[in-house]
């Protein structure tokens, strides 16, 4: 539960920055700063882990059951339903806070001259330990089998939310903690993915999904497109652009390259095919992003993001966007940066999936 490698890194960081205390804050949606040190999925609304410069740990939870579950950790553990007032007692001078921006403003106001440790902690977390990479590999395997279940289960007449429920049940049964999932279905009228609706699948639909199973805290992601019925010429042609763009990123990714170029090599494929305008924010969000204890970590793979790639980064390259050929389409895989390049953690086939309808 306690990531001792991170603890040692954080203590070194505190020494180098002159911080007396480091507080790692989490709330129900963003548990990642807290979990980078104390890998427990608390279920109360808030939790904070405070590390002293000598490495002593104290934890404040907001639910009594969280406290009981955290007992195996060697730390001073307390809980208080009134997290705001309890946090006041932790508000010591010279405290740096990771996740400060996410905290309720009234929480931060307790701290005299608080310093944000968010970026510094993010930069450390960006590079995964060998153990973290193995966990991401397990998550990628579950993404693979989860997607295969998605393909096997989808059929004409089924509602989007019914398919999501089937996949959710499948993944949870196999030990997945959470699963971030978006879905879209239809044709050229579809501009993106969203939570599942009650729309029922029709023959010829393109069903897009982003599956992101979380295993022991760590997310992997897969993006694939499934056609119900034999793909049309336009669907096949569109997919080829996505396949080539994603492959370009995978071929390019290695230590020392810049994230902006990982985006550029993908976008160049779209530009070459005359689809440059569909790489802009009007039609797409990002060309990928880092993965870890949050399913959408920095850096975002965009042409205006300046960030050097290093060994141990786990990210997804996904050139997901709208194209007029066949509507919104997605394609992407989780990649880990190695000494000389990158390794695809998932094993799903790199193809446009389709099934008889």
């Amino acid at each position, binding site marked *: 539960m306690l990531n001792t490698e991170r603890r040692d890194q954080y203590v070194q960081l505190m020494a180098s920055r002159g911080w007396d205390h480091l507080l790692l804050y989490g*709330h*129900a*949606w963003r548990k990642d700063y807290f979990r980078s040190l104390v890998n427990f*999925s608390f*279920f*109360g*609304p808030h939790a904070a882990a405070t590390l002293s410069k000598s490495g002593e740990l104290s934890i404040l939870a*907001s*639910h*009594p*059951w969280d*406290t*009981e*579950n955290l007992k195996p950790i060697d730390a001073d553990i307390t809980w208080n*339903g*009134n997290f705001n007032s309890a946090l006041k007692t932790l508000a010591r001078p010279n405290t740096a806070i990771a996740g*400060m*921006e*996410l*905290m*309720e*403003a*009234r*929480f*931060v*106001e307790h701290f005299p001259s608080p310093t944000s440790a968010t970026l510094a902690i993010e930069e450390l977390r960006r590079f995964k330990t060998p153990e973290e990479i193995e966990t991401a590999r397990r998550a990628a395997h579950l993404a693979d089998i989860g997607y295969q279940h998605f393909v096997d289960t989808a059929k004409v007449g089924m509602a989007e*939310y*019914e398919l*999501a*429920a*089937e996949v*959710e*049940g*499948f*993944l*949870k*049964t*196999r*030990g997945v*903690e*959470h*699963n*971030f*999932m*978006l879905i879209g279905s239809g044709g050229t009228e579809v*501009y*993106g993915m*969203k*939570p*599942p*609706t*009650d729309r029922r699948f029709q023959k010829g639909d393109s069903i897009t999904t982003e599956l992101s199973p979380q295993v022991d805290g760590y997310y992997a992601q897969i993006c694939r497109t499934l056609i119900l019925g034999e793909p049309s010429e336009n669907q096949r042609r569109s997919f080829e652009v996505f396949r080539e763009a994603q492959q370009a990123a995978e071929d390019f990714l290695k230590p020392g390259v810049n994230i902006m170029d990982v985006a550029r090599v993908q976008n160049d494929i779209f530009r070459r095919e005359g689809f440059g305008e569909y790489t802009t*924010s*009007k*039609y797409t*969000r990002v060309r990928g992003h880092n993965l870890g204890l949050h399913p*959408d970590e920095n850096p975002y793979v965009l042409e205006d993001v300046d960030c050097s790639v290093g060994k141990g980064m786990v990210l997804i390259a996904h050139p997901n966007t*709208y194209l007029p050929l066949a509507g919104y389409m997605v394609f992407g895989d989780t990649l880990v940066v190695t000494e000389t390049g990158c390794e695809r953690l998932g094993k799903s086939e790199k193809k446009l999936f389709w099934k008889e309808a």
Partner: protein
Amino acid sequence: MKRGLITWDKTELPPEVFQRRLVVVRRVLAERQLPALVVYSDLWRSNEARFFANYMPYFNRALLILPVEGMPTLLCGLSPRTYRWIQSVTPIEDVRPAGNFAKPLGEVAAERGWTKVGVLNAGQLPYDLSQALHGGTVELVNVESEAVFHPANDDHEIAMRRKAAAMARAALDEELPAGVGKIDHEFVGQLERRLRLAGAEDLVILLTNGDTAPGPAHGKKLQEGYSVSIALEYRGHWVRMSMTEAFRNPELIPSGPPDILNEPVHEALSGSYPYECGHDEGFSANHQELYDHETERGFLMGDTSWHGPKGWEVL
């Protein structure tokens, strides 16, 4: 994370319901001489914006602006590509993109001639957003939640929570006996599938064999007399429920009078968060543990209650 069916069924929540809620907001604003109320929302803290506009940002932040005069506006961190979906789940027609929320809020204020606005629970805004808004062109005035947000006095809110409770109860009644001997993950998967097919928007499921506090599934075999605690969200309405398999297995229950080992856990269900410990005058969940000293096992039970005119009523 929300990945169940998020929808707006107008037979359950007719548009007039939101109009009535807006009337209350407008009255409070007029009393305080404020031209509008800003309500923050994100993936987890969506209860209040949901109450006024049925909108839940599934991945991002949003600010709902409820004016005294004119139509409400939604400032939305999501891409305009999702607006068609947004407009299918909310009565709000004016949806605008917002990266840094301070600028678009300033633009809306300038359009309508506002120099100040009310902010619902201003101290609970995320720190970065609070800093940005305070650095903007509009003065922010705190409006406490209690002034405008009364879900427990609202028939539609009560009805929605009743549906959520019925859904959770039916699933636990049927699935609990079948869980004995299963690995907890398997049981959780079965519950997730069933409840999401029934329309649950989100779920948090905790389990215990009675020798620990309830916690997330972690590969343990469920024994006779195990307990489950479930938080279920149905279209923005959370309920909590705890049930033990022991009640179907009477020989597991202590023969003498059972002890209550721990203080009951009280959870508030009307606040900004889906659930949090504390006392709530409207909707509350109470979890009680029966403890058998002989076997050193606890058995958990609990339910969501509504405080109505006749006192507390289990939903």
